[in-house]
C-alpha cells in the first residue's frame, strides 16, 4: 500500500435533490481527500450537505438525489459505479450513523445483524462469525458479549447500541471509518465515551476517519484536519490547530463562538443570527453574506472562491479574519 496515495478522493462534487417545490443544490463544488490513517473533520450546520457527502463517500446518493458533477474515487476507482461501490461498502469503508436506534433493525438480533455483514464480505461460517462478533463487542467495550448476540437492539441502552454499530462498522477490518454525527443522539457523558472510543480505535487500528458533526467541540481532539461546510460549499479548510486559533472565515469564527466549552463556561456562546440560504435558488454572491457581520455590497454580488492561505489551508471570503497580511493589500497590488 502506498502511504501517500489518498484512500478517498472527492473532486468537484455536485449533488442535487429535486423536490416538488424546486431543485435543491445540496453539495456544490466540494473537493476533499482522505489519506490512510488520517482524520478529517467536516463541520457544518444541519442542511449544509455534510451527510450527503458522507453518503456519497459510500457511493450512496438516495433517490431522488443525483450526482450532477464531479467524481468520488476510492483508491482511484469511481464509487459512482454501483458495482464498484458495492465491493468496498462495509468492507473497506464503513459508516457509523447518527441514531443507533434507527441504524439497527429493531426486529433482528444483534448477532444476526453482525454476522450477516461478515458472511457477506469475509465469507465466514456462522460459528466463526459469531466468535468474531463476540470479540468485536468486547473490543468496543460491551460487557457480556456472548449474551448480547441474542438480544434485540431495544434491550440495550443508546450508548451500547452505538457501540454495536461501531463493532459492525469495524467487523471487516475497514481502511476508513465515516462517523456521521455519531454522538448527536446520545446523552452528554455517553457522547464523550463514544468519541474517545472512536479516537482510540482509529489510532489503534490505523484507520482513516471522516468525522462529520455540527459541533466544533466534537472534532476538537479527534481530527487533524478540518473542513467547514456552509450551504453545500466548503468555506474554510486547514489543520484543526489553525482553524481553532486563527479562523479566517467569519462563519468558522462564529461557529467557534457558538461552541459550548467543556469547562461549562457559556459566556462565549453566541447564536449565529439568521438562517442558511434556500438552496433551491442560489444567489450570485457569498452564501454567508446575509448572516455575516462583515458583509459588504461586494460580498452580495461576487462569489468568493477557495484560495490558499499561509497556514497551508484554504478559505473562501472577501474579508477574512485573523490574517497576518490583510487581504486588501494583496488586492491592491
Amino acid at each position, binding site marked *: 500500500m502506498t502511504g501517500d496515495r489518498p484512500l478517498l478522493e472527492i473532486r468537484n462534487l455536485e449533488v*442535487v435533490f*429535486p*423536490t*416538488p*417545490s*424546486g*431543485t435543491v*443544490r445540496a453539495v456544490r463544488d466540494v473537493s476533499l481527500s482522505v489519506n490512510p490513517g488520517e482524520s478529517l473533520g467536516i463541520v457544518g450546520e444541519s442542511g449544509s450537505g455534510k451527510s450527503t457527502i458522507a453518503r456519497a463517500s459510500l457511493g450512496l446518493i438516495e*433517490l*431522488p438525489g443525483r450526482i450532477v458533477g464531479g467524481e468520488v474515487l476510492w483508491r482511484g476507482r469511481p464509487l459512482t459505479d454501483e458495482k464498484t461501490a458495492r465491493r468496498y461498502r462495509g468492507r473497506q469503508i464503513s459508516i457509523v450513523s447518527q441514531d443507533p436506534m434507527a441504524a439497527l433493525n429493531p426486529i433482528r438480533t444483534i448477532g444476526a445483524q453482525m454476522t450477516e455483514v461478515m458472511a457477506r464480505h469475509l465469507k465466514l461460517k456462522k460459528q466463526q462469525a459469531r466468535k468474531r462478533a463476540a470479540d468485536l463487542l468486547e473490543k468496543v467495550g460491551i460487557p457480556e458479549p456472548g449474551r448480547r448476540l441474542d438480544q434485540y437492539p431495544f434491550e440495550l441502552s443508546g450508548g451500547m447500541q452505538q457501540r454495536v454499530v461501531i463493532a459492525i462498522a469495524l467487523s471487516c477490518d475497514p481502511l476508513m471509518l465515516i462517523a456521521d454525527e455519531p454522538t448527536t443522539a446520545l446523552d452528554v457523558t455517553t457522547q464523550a465515551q463514544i468519541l474517545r472510543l472512536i479516537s482510540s480505535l482509529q489510532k489503534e487500528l490505523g484507520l482513516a476517519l471522516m468525522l462529520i458533526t455540527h459541533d466544533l467541540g466534537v472534532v476538537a481532539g479527534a481530527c487533524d484536519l478540518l473542513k467547514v461546510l456552509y450551504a453545500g460549499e466548503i468555506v474554510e479548510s486547514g489543520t484543526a490547530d489553525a482553524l481553532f486559533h486563527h479562523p479566517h472565515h467569519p462563519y468558522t469564527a462564529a461557529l467557534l463562538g457558538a461552541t459550548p466549552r467543556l469547562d461549562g463556561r457559556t459566556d462565549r456562546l453566541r447564536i449565529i443570527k439568521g438562517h442558511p*440560504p*434556500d438552496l*433551491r*435558488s*442560489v*444567489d*450570485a*454572491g457569498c452564501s454567508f453574506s*446575509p448572516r455575516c457581520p462583515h458583509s459588504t455590497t461586494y460580498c*452580495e*454580488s461576487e462569489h468568493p472562491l477557495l484560495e490558499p492561505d499561509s497556514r497551508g489551508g484554504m478559505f473562501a471570503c472577501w474579508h477574512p479574519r485573523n490574517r497576518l497580511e490583510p487581504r486588501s493589500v494583496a488586492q491592491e497590488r
Partner: protein
Amino acid sequence: MTPTRRTNHHLDRPPSHGWIKAVLQDPAALFGVVVVVVLVGVALLAPWIAPLDPTKQDLGARLLPPFYARGGSFEHILGTDQLGRDVLSRIIHGSRISLTIPLVTVTLAGVFGTAVGLLAGYRGGRTDTIIMRAVDTLFSFPGLLLALTILAVVGPGFWTLAIVLSLRIWMVFARVTRGLVLSAREAEYVDAAELIGASPVRIMLRHIAPNLTAPLSTLAVIESAHVILSEAALSFLGLGIQSPQISWGLDVAIGRQYVFSAPWLIILPGTAIAVSVLGINLLAGRLRIAADPQESAKRFAATAALPGAQSG
C-alpha cells in the same frame, strides 16, 4: 431574501401541482374520474338515454344475443333477457341503484360514525375508552353473515339494505375520525385556542374540522366502492334489491340460469359493476395521495427517480 440580490441560478421547478392537473397527468385517475362522471350522468339521465323501457317484456324477442355475438343485431345492442327486456336499458337504469345506495349508506354511516369519532376523540378519557371498546367488539362481528340474518328476518328492501350496509361502515368513519381528532388536538394551535377559552364547539369547527375534510372525503369515496360491491352481492343472493327494481347484481343472478345459453346476461351487468368499482377505487387512490402530504412526497420521489419522468 433582500430584493436587491440577483439570482443567477434559477433551477428547474416542476409545475405547481394543481389537483386537476395532477389528475389529468395520471391516466388511472383520469379513468376513475371519467367512470364516476359517466355513472352519475347515466343515472341522472337514465329515462332519457335508455333506448327502451327496461321493464317492457317482449316474449317474441327473448334471449337475443348482443351485437358482437352471432345472431346479434343493433335493435337490441346488448341483447335481451329471458323475458325479452332490453339489456342495455336495464344496465342504464341499474346505475341508479349503484349511485343511490352508496350515497344514502355512506351519508348515514358517515354522519353517525363521524359524530361518534368526534365525541370519542374530543372527550377522551373514559368516554373514549368505552366507545372504542364497543366499536372494537362490534367490528369483530362476522359482518356479511349478520347482514344476511337481518335481511332474512326483517325482509329485504332499499332502506333495510342501506341501514344494514351502514352498520359496519360507520365504525370505519368513527375510528378514522377519532384518530384524526387525536392528532389534531396535539397541535399547538388547539392548545392555544383552549387556553384562551374558546368553546369546544368553536374549537371543533374552527380548528379540528378542517383537518378532517380531506381524509374523510377520501374515505367516503373508498367506502362507496365497498357499498356498491356489497349491494351487488346481497342483491345477487336475493336479499338486496328486489324485482321490479333494477340492480346489476340482481340481473347477474337472473342471468345465472342461462349460463350456457346466454352468458351475456352475466357478463354485461357484471362488467358495469366491475368498471364502476374499479373507477371509484382508482379515483380514491389518487385522492389519498392528494390528501396525504407524506404519500405525495413518496410518489414524487418515485416518479422523479424515473428517467424522463421529470418535466422541466
